[in-house]
């Protein structure tokens, strides 16, 4: 009886070990998964509202709104990458929705500062283009 129990434990441990080895993600998958996690946990208020004093209470809501908006923009862009005119037509509606949600969290002064930070269309090296266009 003891032997059977011992063999069962060894078999189980061996199986778990083999499973663990098989499920070790490749470097590429590890890096990709790491990016997804980073993207989900980034403090976007620090990047896109960098000159605006966002309170600790506002931050989680702001970050969630920005992340959802970026997700929607990415889906739209990738679906229309052969014809970006479709993207350009539909992006303003996404932005208006985003602006409405953001205005519900930020006060009017913060919101005005954010809208004033809009970069010119041809300022291609300004990360804020990612929100406004």
């Amino acid at each position: 009886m003891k032997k059977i129990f011992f063999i069962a434990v060894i078999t189980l441990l061996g199986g778990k070990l083999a499973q663990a080895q098989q499920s070790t993600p490749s470097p590429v998958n590890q890096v990709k998964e790491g990016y997804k996690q980073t993207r989900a946990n980034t403090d976007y208020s620090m990047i896109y509202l960098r000159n605006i004093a966002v309170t600790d209470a506002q931050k989680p809501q702001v970050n969630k709104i920005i992340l959802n908006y970026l997700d929607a923009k990415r889906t739209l862009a990738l679906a229309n990458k052969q014809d970006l005119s479709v993207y350009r037509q539909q992006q303003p509606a996404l932005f208006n929705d985003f602006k409405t949600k953001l205005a519900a969290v930020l006060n009017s002064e913060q919101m005005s500062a954010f809208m004033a930070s809009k970069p010119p269309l041809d300022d291609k090296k300004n990360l804020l283009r990612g929100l406004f266009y």
Partner: protein
Amino acid sequence: MPQSPGRLLSIIVDHPELLFMKKIWIYYFLGIAVMLSACDRKSDLNIDGIPTDVRIAQALATYQQKLTDAPYGWVVTQYTNGTSTNGGVTRNGPKAVFSYYMKFDKNSQVSMLSDFNMGAATVFNNTGYRIKANQRPTLIFDTYSYVHLPCDPDGSISNSPFGSGFGWGTDFEFSFADNVAAAELGDTIRLKGNLNQAEAVMVKATQAEQTLFTTSGFGSYSTFNKILEYFKRVNVGGVIFEITPGVGGRSFDIKTTGSQTITNVGCQFAPTSIILQEPVTVGGLTVRSLDNLVWNAGSRTISATVNGTAATIAPALAPLSPEPGIAIAFYNEGLDNPWLTIPGFHISGVDDAYNIRGLTFPGRTYYRYVYYPGLVDAGGGDFYDVLSPFFVGATNGYPYLFAGGVAYPYLQSGGRLTFEMLDGGDPIVNPPAIISTNNVFNTGKTAPPYFANSAGFYIVRKADGTTMDMVTAGDALGWISWNHQ
């Protein structure tokens, strides 16, 4: 209790099996006696009257004598087989050849040179060695030496492309692999590595070779590496070909004018020659070696001969036969399959010049430098690239991403790729290694003076088909090797 004979007889008559048991005992004791006599040490383990221990000691002494009796030392060449083993795990990677000059003495010391790096190529290293009876007679380099450098599991020492924890698949314990008695070994001795099975060949050096090694070390290695540029152009009587470093830098990738064929070949450095592992045919010319290498400081070129014909080796700033569309192909391949590297830029002859392998971040461990195109929203349906180190151990694996790790890519004329590293506003302070690396990404040069616009990078496909080198187009003095591992 004593029994009378009459009583014993009646017992045996009643129980005859007792008599049979007594016989068993007799046979048992006889058997033991035979077995013990068979274990007599004086009989069959002696050969020619010499006990085993003595014969082993004699054989080991003979092996040592063979090594020490070479008056001018040995030229040792180690060939890896493209695998590296550590802790029972084996990884595949590029093959390599490492060459040594060794002089063994009778006090179990060996002095050596190696073509591992510039220092080892010219400065003798003294280390201990032993010859020991393992499963086969074994030569062990038992203190850290040039032989150990390519074995080192620390990639910052071995510069191995096999990943953290793995050297080049070389060994420092070798079995004597010739199936002859020690006394019958000649001027060539074959060895086989005990862990990685890497083969090594020892050839007795001539007096002339010893003189060359002691005066200028692995001169061909030192001379060839005086050209620090990535592209080395060889002209042999009008036949032109280009040498770039093979993956990991221990072999040559050879291309010719107008051809996209890449030939990878191992190279063995000798005092004045570079011997190719296999002959390479270039424009009707069969190249087996580059001989008589001499550095010309004034012109920054190398004079040489190939098959007796005068040749020059000169640095070049651009590829001889750039692959059409390679930059955009490189970008597209990385879109859902990020490009990775462990070491950072090789700059002016120094591997991982900014010590990217040594990057730290609290609570995290450096894993890979990542080029992952098309991820960060750039507006208007465009995306910036991630060009930043990735760490494991926390949810945010890219702590420097928005502090300069977002790249704005641009495809330039001539197939060059430029980057502008963008400030995302994250106040985190970049360490010097990342600042220097980003500076190279920004400028496409390794040092000032910088151009008004970035020179960008040439993308060069390697012979393994899975590695792409990114070479500074501004000076060709810096490069970083990307793959998906």
